[in-house]
């Protein structure tokens, strides 16, 4: 580069201060490794990358397959939270991908709720209470999942201690939100002592009616 341009080059060099990435190398590797694994699984499965309904199935070690991969969203307001125990990433297709250490999923509910809300997922979580709004469909399938939940929340076990969820905020009907009710220790009989939860769609902007009566025994 010509010395005549020294002043322009100096001005350019000085136009951006010292910066550093917040993400660590381990976090970058974790994301890349996860994608490698999913890509590999998708290849083995011949591209049949359907997802299984989650609910309590993952607590029972339910069958799983790789979730559909999607490019990370780089839009303004995109959420990419990579903690040791969990990751939350908004994707370009509008979904939210969450990987979670299973124990943390049930023990660190506040963090999950905050991360999902930050990512744009309307969700309300309770422990030991199972709520519905006026006119909401209160039925549950044998796995503790209400009607329509499969459209907004899918997931599967992706390892001995890991679970992956795909949330789709755009699939939540207008005026509804996802309710997740975790069983407390006294209610775990229905899951033979394993961590469990109930998911259903409930109305927003209304007073929810809640019960502490555990749902029917899960199958």
């Amino acid at each position: 580069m010509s010395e005549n341009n020294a002043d322009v080059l100096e001005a350019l060099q000085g136009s951006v201060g010292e910066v550093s990435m917040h993400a660590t190398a381990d976090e970058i590797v974790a994301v890349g490794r996860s994608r490698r694994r999913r890509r590999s699984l998708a290849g083995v499965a011949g591209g049949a990358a359907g997802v299984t309904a989650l609910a309590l199935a993952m607590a029972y070690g339910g069958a799983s397959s790789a979730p559909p991969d999607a490019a990370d969203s780089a839009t303004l307001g995109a959420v990419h939270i990579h903690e040791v125990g969990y990751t939350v990433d908004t994707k370009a297709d509008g979904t939210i991908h969450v990987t979670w250490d299973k124990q943390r999923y049930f023990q660190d509910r506040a963090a999950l709720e905050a991360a999902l809300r930050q990512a744009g997922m309307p969700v309300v979580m309770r422990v030991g209470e199972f709520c519905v709004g006026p006119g909401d469909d209160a039925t549950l399938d044998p796995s503790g999942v209400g009607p329509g939940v499969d459209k907004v929340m899918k997931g599967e076990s992706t390892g001995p201690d890991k679970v992956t969820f795909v949330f789709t905020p755009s699939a939540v009907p207008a005026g509804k939100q996802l309710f997740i009710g975790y069983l407390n220790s006294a209610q775990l009989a229905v899951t033979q002592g394993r961590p469990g939860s109930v998911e259903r769609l409930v109305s927003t902007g209304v007073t929810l009616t809640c019960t502490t009566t555990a749902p029917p025994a899960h199958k």
Partner: protein
Amino acid sequence: VEQLEFGEFYRSGQAACLRAVLASVGDRQLAEDLVAEAFARAWMSWAKVRGHPAPYGWVVRTALNVRTSWWRRRRRETVLDGALEVQDTTAGDTVLDPVLLAALRRLPRRQREVVVFRVFLDLDTRATAKVLGIAEGTVAVHLARALATLRQHLVARRVLEVES
């Protein structure tokens, strides 16, 4: 071993890559997202990237390509929405000369990319040509034109400063 190697690669070059991308996009959070995405892709293709003649150039090029896709998508969505609103989320403490960087971003894409690779990433002409897939002579031409335009901008600014 592979992970240790990549970790060192990331730690050594992440700041320069972020700086280069930030100069190009002007938004700290967006730049971080793009660079993180590019490094994740580098890890996924590490066997190829580690042998690249300019691996950090590969990362920045990937980040800017992701940005291009994002911008095209956003522009389509904006047209559909019937509204244009570009948020200014520039991080004030890292972008020290936003006016000059705005001038940089107004350059034609190739000129801007050449400046990013040659000036901010400090790649030589050959490596820049390799990363961008253009001739070395073309790199030199783009750089000369870009610097000439930016010089005019600096001169105009100095005149205004003197007059005021």
